[in-house]
C-alpha cells in the first residue's frame, strides 16, 4: 500500500509538469500531420514508427534521468521517514514509466483510432516497452553516477548507440562478413537491441516487409515462430527488468 501511495504521489507531481504534456502534444501533432498528408495506413504507420523509435527512448531516458537527479534532495528527505529505499525508487519508476506510456498512447491515439489495425496495436505495445526499458535504464544510470552531467551524457550515449549506432554495427558486420551465412548472427544482433526489436515487431506486420526480399522469409519464420516470439518478448522484458533490479540493488547499498 505504501508503494501505491508513493507512486500516486509522484504521479500527481508529474501531471503538473507542462513539458511532459508538450511531449504528448508533439506526438499528437506529428500523427495528425501524417494523417492529414496521407490517408495511407502503411505510410502513417511507418512514419509514426520512425518517430516512436527515435523520440520515445530519447524522451524516456532523458526526462527520467533529469527528474531523478532533480528530486535527489526530496528522495533524501523521504528516506528520513520510515519507508524502504526500494519502495521509494520503485514508486518513482512506476509513476514515471506509466505516466510516460500514457502520454505516448495519448499522442498516437488519433492514428490508432483511425485505422485500428493489428500493426497499430503492436506500435503502441512497442512504444510501451521502449518507455519502460529506457526509464529503467535511466534509473540504472542515475543511481550509478552521482554527477548529473556525467549521468546525462551516459544516457545520451546509450540512446545514440541503441537508436543509431547499433544498426551501423550490424551493417558493418553484414558488409565485412558478407561471404558467410549471416541470418542467425543478424537475428542474434537484433535480439540484443530493444529498438531493433520494436522496429521489427511492427515492420514484419506490414507490406514493407516484402522489401527485405529473400531474408524476409527467414526473419518472418523466426519472429513469427513461437520460439522467436518468446525470445523477443523475453529480450524486451529482460531489458526492462534487469536494469531496474540492478538499480534497486545498488540504491539499497548506496551511501546517500
Amino acid at each position, binding site marked *: 500500500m505504501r508503494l501505491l501511495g508513493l507512486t500516486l504521489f509522484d504521479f500527481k507531481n508529474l501531471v503538473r509538469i507542462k513539458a511532459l504534456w508538450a511531449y504528448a502534444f508533439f506526438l499528437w501533432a506529428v500523427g495528425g500531420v501524417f494523417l492529414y498528408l496521407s490517408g495511407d495506413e502503411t505510410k502513417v504507420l511507418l512514419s509514426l514508427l520512425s518517430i516512436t523509435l527515435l523520440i520515445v527512448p530519447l524522451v524516456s531516458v532523458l526526462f527520467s534521468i533529469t527528474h531523478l537527479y532533480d528530486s535527489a534532495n526530496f528522495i533524501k528527505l523521504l528516506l528520513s521517514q520510515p519507508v524502504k529505499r526500494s519502495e521509494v525508487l520503485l514508486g518513482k519508476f512506476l509513476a514515471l514509466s506509466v505516466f510516460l506510456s500514457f502520454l505516448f498512447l495519448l499522442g498516437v491515439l488519433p492514428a490508432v483510432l483511425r485505422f485500428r489495425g493489428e500493426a497499430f496495436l503492436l506500435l503502441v505495445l512497442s512504444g510501451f516497452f521502449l518507455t519502460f526499458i529506457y526509464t529503467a535504464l535511466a534509473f540504472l544510470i542515475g543511481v550509478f553516477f552521482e554527477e548529473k552531467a556525467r549521468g546525462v551524457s551516459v544516457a545520451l550515449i546509450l540512446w545514440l548507440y541503441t537508436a543509431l549506432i547499433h544498426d551501423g554495427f550490424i551493417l558493418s558486420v553484414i558488409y565485412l562478413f558478407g561471404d558467410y551465412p549471416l541470418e542467425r548472427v543478424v537475428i542474434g544482433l537484433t535480439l540484443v537491441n530493444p529498438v531493433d526489436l520494436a522496429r521489427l515487431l511492427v515492420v514484419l506486420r506490414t507490406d514493407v516487409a516484402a*522489401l527485405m526480399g529473400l531474408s524476409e522469409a527467414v526473419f518472418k519464420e523466426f519472429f513469427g515462430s513461437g520460439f522467436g516470439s518468446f525470445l523477443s518478448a523475453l529480450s524486451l522484458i529482460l531489458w526492462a527488468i534487469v536494469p531496474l533490479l540492478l538499480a534497486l540493488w545498488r540504491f539499497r547499498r548506496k551511501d546517500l
Partner: protein
Amino acid sequence: MERPTLSLPLLSLPALALCAEIYVCERCEVKSINEAIKRAKAGDKVIVLGGTYREGTINVNKPISLIGKNYPTLDGEGKYEVVRITASGVLFSGFRVVNSGVSELEDIAGIKVVNARKCVIKDNVLKNNFWGIYLAKVRDCVLEGNVLEGRGEGSEVYTGNGIHLWHCSNVKILNNTIRRHRDGIYFEFVKKSHIEGNLSEENWRYGLHFMFSHDDTYVRNTFRRNGAGVAVMYTKRVLMKENRFEENWGGSSYGLLLKAISDSTIVNNVFYKNTTGILMDETQRTLIKHNDFVSNGWAIRVWANSADNTITENNFLGNTFEVSTNSKENPNTFVMNYWSSYRGYDLNRDGIGDIPHRPVKLFSYILENNPEAGVLVKSFFVELLNRIESVFPIVIPTKLQDPKPLMRRVRWRS
C-alpha cells in the same frame, strides 16, 4: 419444349447449301454431343441448346462448329478431359466447361487442342478444371473472350495453367479472363503470337509466363495480384505495350521478371505497387520507354549480367527505391527519365535538370549484394545513410546515373 428460334435458320442462310445444322438438347432427336459429332460432316454445325452433358470426353475430330446456346454445361465429373479437339478449322463457342479430371501424371485440360490449325475457341466459361485451355502443336488459332477460373484450392501443384500453349505459332489470345490457375497464361515454344486485352489475376504463380517464345506481342493486358507476378524467359524480340502490372507484392514477387530476354521493347506500360517493377536478369539490347513506375518497392532492379539496355522517358513516381543494382559499373543507358525524387534545378529552363540524378540509394545497393541487410529496413541509421549519400555521393560505388533527368513528367498517354 425448347425449339430453335426463328433467327437461327436465318443466320445460317448463306451457308445453307454448304452445311447442315444438328441440334442437341434433352428433347431433340440427338441427345448426345458425341453422337451429333459422329453424324456431322465437315463444315456442319452442331448446336447445343442448354442442359448439362456428362459424356466423358467430347472428341471433336472433324472440322465442324460446336455452338452452345444458353451456355450448356459440359461436365468432366472430375475424371475426364472434357473437350478434345484434334481437327483443324473447329469453332467451339458458348459452352460452360467444368470439373476436368486431376492427375499428377497427365496434363488434363478443360479444352485441349492437339495438332490442329485454324481453331476458334470463343466466349466459353471454364470452371474448376485442372488445366484450362491447352494447345499443343497448334497454328493459326484464336482464343477469344473466354473466362477461366481454376480450382483455387490446394497449391500450385494441384492446379494447372489457365491458357497453356506448347509448340504453337500465330495464335491470337484476345480478351480472356483467367483467375486462380497456376500460371494465368503459359507459353513454351510459341512464335509470332498476339496477346491482347486479357486479364490475368490471382493466379498461384505467374500471371504470364513464357519461355523460348520469340516474336510475340503483348498489348493492353492486365496482370494483377499474381503469386509471383509475370516472368518471361529465354526469349528474343518481344513487344510489350500498354500492359498493366499491378499489386504483385511479396518477397519474391515481380511486376515483370526479365530473364534472358534480348532485343525486346517494353513501352507504354504501367507498373503499380509491385515489390519489384522490373527485375532485369541477363537482359540485353532492350528498350524500356514511356512507362510509368508508380509506388513500387523497387521500380527497376538491374543485375550486373544485363547490358546495352536503354531506359528512357519513363516516369518514376513515389517508389521506395528507384533503381537498384549489384554492379559498380553501368553498362546500360538511363537517360531523360522523370524521377519524382530528383532534387536538382534547371537554370536554363530547357526542361532538363542541370545536375545528374543518381537513382541508386546506398541502402538498395547494399541490399542487392547482402540480402541479410533487409533486417535494417526502416532503420533510422539507414535513412540517415541514404540522406548523407545523396548529399555527398562518395560512398556509393556505382556509376549508374541519369545525366539528363527531366524536370516534368513525360506525357506519353495521349
